[in-house]
């Protein structure tokens, strides 16, 4: 079937609502139950697919009618995975192993008793909590980009449509001009979630204004920051929202071809994206004459091959062209001269995921969330020394303290909080004093860190900050593409200095040299990767100078353990 008008889409939505009615608590039909099992990478790693298999077997054996099992995307609460939610009873089970399937069926489904042992226990109150809403992890979150993750089956386009999917695209194509679309995005105040924070509406406008018959729209899914998994979870849990948004963006800027540049290390996201693309094509939501208009659009996938720098947009475009992923000087910006020299708009996955809701709920609604200059919400991947590792989406302007202590549940084993690194290898640390700043793009920059793509690594009193800085430098040294001198040689020298410091072979003069070199690289490197590479050093030196000094002066100071084995090539990957 091909959808040729908005009305046909509404009809299809009507037909599909039955699929998700139980989950939305829209009327119950007898004993029917939906069991939602998380099928994100994290939960799959702890055997959630075996949980599904066992549930299926037992349900079949017990001849339970009307029970359906749905494999959803990531719920976000990865620490407690695998997660199972039973609707319409609204019961949230955590750490469900394959062996627990029997109890879930026999106790919960057959007898209607909650399985107490699998409920989440609130660590503060020491009591069992059974609904998602009551959990402190979810209380302060507002899910916009993640609205469908952990709710729908990402491999079923009808569930997405039942929740209002593709309506935004239909409306944009049939009722709005290209300028009107751009206007809404501009008014919403949405800024790029890939790290730079460039206003998305403005980027679209610039790309639209370029005179060219051929334009491209690219989705940047090369999430390279280790320890961050926002984009992957969105693509795994709700691929259609990204596809829909890319089509809307393409219409606005005048492109007919889209590319998703995705890491080859994300096999599950690739698989689900491919499924979603196929389904969208089958319904005519991609392809020729979408919604009966003269707008045609399709998307192809390009795979990354393990290079962090390919997240940078000009490097990404080079890599799409099958070349080494080295960045170019800007300007010209990709919006002017991008993929094969044509105007190209590059946006991040999470940026795209916000677009469809903005179109349906309106710019004003979106702009009510967040701070004056940063609107909306941001997804963070909370990891490291924190109780509730997982994916959280919070309104901009919330404080770090709320994220780490209220949502994240604080530091495990009664240890003391020391610092949090935001912005991955390009960011810096924020200490106790900075915990109460409302976070948005600008306040984090002021604090010497940055928003980055949303990785947030929490460190406790046991972590030595010099070692952490060294860890990040080892990463950037490995990943520096080698195009510019400061990046190729500078990061290597910087790392060697840190290595000497942690090995106890440095003097105070070396610390000075370290500082100088850090600033020099910052000022002279070619692209964002190496310009920001010294940030972890600069910010740890600012806040934890005494730890650097301790390595130099204190003879008995424990030496850093590193896994560094000198390579003879300078800054080249072996």
């Amino acid at each position: 079937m091909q959808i040729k008008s908005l009305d046909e889409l509404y009809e299809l939505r009507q037909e599909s609502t039955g699929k998700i009615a139980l989950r939305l608590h829209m009327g119950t039909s007898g004993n029917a139950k939906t069991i939602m099992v998380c099928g994100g990478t994290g939960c799959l790693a702890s055997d959630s697919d075996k949980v599904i298999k066992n549930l299926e077997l037992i349900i079949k054996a017990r001849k339970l009618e009307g029970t359906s099992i749905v494999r959803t995307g990531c719920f976000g609460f990865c620490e407690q995975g695998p997660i199972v939610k039973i609707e319409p009873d609204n019961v949230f089970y955590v750490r469900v192993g394959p062996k627990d399937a029997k109890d879930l069926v026999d106790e919960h489904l057959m007898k209607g008793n909650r399985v107490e042992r699998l409920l989440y226990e609130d660590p503060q109150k020491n009591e069992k909590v059974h609904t998602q809403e009551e959990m402190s992890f979810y209380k302060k979150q507002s899910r916009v980009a993640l609205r469908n993750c952990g709710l729908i089956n990402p491999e079923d386009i009808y569930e997405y449509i039942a929740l209002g999917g593709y309506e935004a695209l239909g409306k944009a194509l049939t009722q709005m001009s290209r300028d009107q679309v751009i206007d809404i995005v501009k008014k919403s105040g949405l800024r790029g979630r890939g790290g730079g924070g460039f206003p998305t509406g403005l980027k679209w406008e610039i790309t639209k204004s370029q005179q060219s018959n051929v334009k491209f729209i690219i989705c940047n899914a090369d999430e390279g920051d280790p320890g961050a998994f926002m984009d992957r979870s969105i693509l795994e849990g709700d691929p259609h929202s990204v596809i829909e948004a890319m089509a809307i963006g393409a219409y606005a800027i005048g492109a007919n071809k889209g590319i998703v540049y995705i890491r080859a290390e994300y096999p599950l996201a690739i698989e689900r994206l491919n499924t979603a693309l196929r389904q969208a094509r089958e319904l005519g939501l991609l392809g020729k004459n979408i919604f009966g208009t003269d707008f045609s659009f399709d998307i192809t996938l390009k795979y990354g091959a393990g290079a962090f720098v390919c997240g940078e947009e000009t490097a990404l475009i080079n890599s799409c062209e099958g070349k080494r992923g080295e960045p170019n000087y800007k300007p010209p910006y990709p919006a002017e001269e991008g993929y094969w020299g044509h105007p190209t708009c590059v946006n991040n996955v999470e940026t795209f995921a916000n677009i469809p809701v903005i179109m349906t709920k309106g710019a004003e609604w979106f702009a009510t969330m967040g701070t004056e200059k940063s609107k909306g919400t941001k997804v963070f991947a909370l990891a490291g020394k924190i109780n509730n590792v997982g994916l959280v989406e919070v309104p901009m302007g919330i404080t770090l303290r709320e994220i780490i202590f209220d949502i994240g549940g604080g530091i495990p084993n009664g240890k003391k909080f020391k610092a949090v690194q935001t912005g991955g290898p390009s960011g810096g640390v924020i200490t106790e004093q900075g915990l109460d700043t409302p976070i948005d793009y600008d306040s984090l920059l002021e604090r010497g860190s940055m928003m980055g793509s949303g990785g947030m690594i929490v460190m406790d009193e046991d972590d030595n900050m010099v070692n952490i800085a060294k860890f990040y430098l080892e990463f950037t040294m490995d990943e520096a593409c080698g195009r510019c001198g400061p990046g190729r040689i500078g990061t290597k020298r910087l790392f060697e200095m840190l290595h000497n410091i942690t090995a106890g072979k440095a003097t105070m003069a070396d610390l000075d040299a370290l500082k100088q070199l850090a600033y020099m690289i910052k000022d002279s490197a070619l692209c964002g990767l190496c310009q920001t590479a010294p940030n972890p050093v600069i910010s740890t030196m600012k806040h934890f100078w005494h730890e650097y000094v301790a390595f130099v002066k204190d003879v008995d100071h424990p030496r850093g353990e590193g896994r560094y084995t000198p390579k003879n090539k300078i800054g080249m990957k072996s």
Partner: protein
Amino acid sequence: MQKVRIKFHIERKNYSWQIIYKYFEKLVNVMTKPQDIDVMKPTGQEFPKEKYDELEAFINNLETTKGALIEILHKAQEIFRYLPRDVQLFIARKLGIPGAEVFGVVSFYSYFTTKPGGKHTVSVCMGTACFVRGADKVIEKFKEVLGIESNETTEDGLFTIKDVRCIGACGLAPVVMVDGKVYGRVKVEDVDGIINTYRKQEEQNADKVLR
């Protein structure tokens, strides 16, 4: 050097074409001097023709080869498991581009490997989340137990250690992945156990063959 000199002569003294040709000959001789490596001879492992055919079919089926080099390399690595020189040269000839260009791309991306791996790949996550939860100690232990560095293969060809960046299971940090199986919350004490499960598997397989 040679090139410059020829140009010089042409400009300065009007040498006849024969003489110019002689210079060219000289130049060509320099270039075809016997080299240490014979590029026509396969190095190391020889692959069956079917594998090359499969790759060739894939390339022929592409809509366009413009910009498709990375895609082709992904496919080649899937077929051959790694990208030895011969495979790289095969691709270069097929696409009509210099072998250096192919090697340039292969060496840039860490996903591509030019060495065959062991039977089991032990990928230790060295992402930030795993690092702060002690992945560095875990990888050291693996190196010690297996007696190799990362990106090396044990002598019996059973294990290769790789340090990878975030496999996306940060909630289970520190994470180790052996082939497709993920081990979460790995402690240094668990390392021997993990290795032994695979060693035992091998022994059982060997037993079966013997019986």
